[in-house]
């Protein structure tokens, strides 16, 4: 009986030792991958930060209006944020690669899905950034045109243009990420429709006099005294 217990125990210990001996190299490989991944991710972060500073990415982000959002959220600059993002994505990739070496069942598929998701994530960020840039540019253009044409409440126009572009960009971003595609599509339709209807009602009711003045100004050219540009600037 005693011999049997000892034999079973020693067999269990042997198996554990064998299992551990079998697992240890994988663990070491994982740790090496994690460490190498940290080094590579860190180097990538430094290089990217240098490149972004060289191409004045912060200024571009400022123009896009992204810097203002980051400041409001007490986040670091766009260059720093993107560098850190790349660092974490790269390191996480190596960590997951290391974990996959361990051969834990069920994790493999999730890791493969993560790597397939990465390109879509980058495309979504790219779309979001340039979408913000477009929203900022076109809303400012609308604001300037409205101010110089002496249109009442130019900031409403500015806000409307910005909102429409941002809603449009967000719907594309979510679609790219594959997050709640149907919900986003419906939400976009509702928001866009509501915005247009709101603007139509607002202009219809609130802007009757304005529309009348606009049409009079455009088609009845009798009242010239209001035009200060009668004074030639050149």
């Amino acid at each position, binding site marked *: 009986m005693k011999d049997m217990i000892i034999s079973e125990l020693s067999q269990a210990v042997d198996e554990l030792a064998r299992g551990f001996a079998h697992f240890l190299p994988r663990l070491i490989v994982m740790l090496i991958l994690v460490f190498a991944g940290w080094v590579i991710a860190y180097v990538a972060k430094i290089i990217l930060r240098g490149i972004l500073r060289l191409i004045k990415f912060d*200024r571009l982000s400022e123009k896009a209006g992204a810097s203002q959002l980051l400041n409001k959220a007490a986040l670091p600059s766009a260059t720093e944020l993107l560098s850190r993002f790349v660092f974490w994505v790269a390191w996480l990739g190596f960590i997951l690669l290391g974990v996959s070496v361990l051969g834990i069942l069920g994790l493999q598929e999730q890791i493969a899905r993560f790597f397939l998701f990465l390109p879509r994530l980058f495309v979504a960020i790219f779309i979001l950034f340039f979408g913000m840039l477009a929203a900022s540019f076109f809303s400012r253009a609308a604001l300037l045109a409205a101010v110089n044409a002496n249109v009442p409440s130019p900031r409403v126009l500015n806000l409307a243009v910005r909102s429409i572009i941002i809603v449009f960009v967000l719907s594309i971003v979510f679609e790219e990420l594959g997050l709640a595609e149907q919900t986003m599509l419906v939400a976009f339709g509702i928001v866009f429709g509501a915005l247009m209807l709101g603007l139509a009602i607002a202009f219809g009711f609130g802007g009757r006099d304005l529309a009348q003045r606009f049409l009079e100004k455009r088609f009845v050219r009798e009242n010239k005294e209001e035009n200060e540009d009668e004074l030639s600037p050149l």
Partner: protein
Amino acid sequence: MAEESFLSDDFLRQLINVGEVDILVGFPTHNNAKTIGSIVRTIQSSILRCFPRERAVIINADGGSRDGTPELVTGVSIDDVRRASNLSALRTLHSISTQYATSPASGLALRTILTAADLLRAKACVVISPESAKIESDWLPKLLQPVYRDDCDLVTPTYRRHKFEGLLITNLVYPMVRALYGVRIREAYMSEFGFSGRLGSQFLGQNIWNDAADGEGVDLRFTLAAITGGSRVCQSFLGEKDHDERRGADLVPALRQTAGALFSALETDFPFWSGVSGSESVPTTGSDQQVFLEPVRVNRKRLKEMFSTGVLELESVFKSILSPSTLAELQRIAQSGEDEFRYSSELWAKTIYEFAASYQKSVISRDHIVQALAPLFRGRAFTFVTENRNASADDVENNIEGLCLEFERLKPYLLQIWKPRE
């Protein structure tokens, strides 16, 4: 050397038929049928009268007119002019018309004229605006003779005009060109001007044509190129300026042509203007500048309102362009009533310099920077009109002089905020 492929084969053939010329008169046109016929007749008569021994050519660079403008230019018979004016020339006078594009672009028009002048080896050239409602027969000799006889490279015009006309010129272009480039040219942005073939060829060779393909303010760039190239510049008094099309010119396009072109030139010309201090007058034939003082109706209330609305609504844009102190000062005066409102020369000069520096740094889209200047210019126009409402010609001149001196005094401020080239 001219880029010969830029011209059409037909135009080149006509130029070859002309051969070399002494004098070239260029008309950049677009739907100017109303005025072009009489202008061409006046010019032809002037050539017969003042330059009978010179080989001359009239070049019409047309931007896709649909009212028969090119046909009117080439259709004016020199024989009719000879008979009418009882003059005769010893040389043939050619008139050539070419369509450089299907829509007007002043840069392409000037480039066509300069290229033709270069190919024909013209000694002296003159560009006349077809928008001039009234052109005198002595304009041609006044613009050509300093080039042809006195070895001048560029002749810019001065005019007799109302004290409140051309406010963008008197309040921005003249003071800024004078302070930065050190030359007192009254009309650096010119509709009519004379130049030597040498200067035309030099300008053709400059690398500005790709940037200024549509030619916003290319005339101003031409003047600045003459100054930076060390060319001899002089002014000639032409008389009354009466340009039909420009009378109601929109402010934003006018700002693009003047302020935009000037800000853009400052970037490339930095090595030149950063070393200039003070300013010098240029030789002038006739009067320096004449103003007439008839009262005109100006909607000052609207100017003030558009300034105040602009400052309020464009705060986010101005925050990117202006320094906090300048913006605060603008916001303060925007809230003041019409009687207390005053956009001082110092504040105006600081505003313009900060706009120029922001343009160089491209803090936002450059075109947006130029557009944002429009409401501020209206504020300055309000002050200028108010201050000079009852002013005599001398008082107006003194006020403009004071503004110029303010621009000169604040030039170190521009150098301080100008970003050094990396």
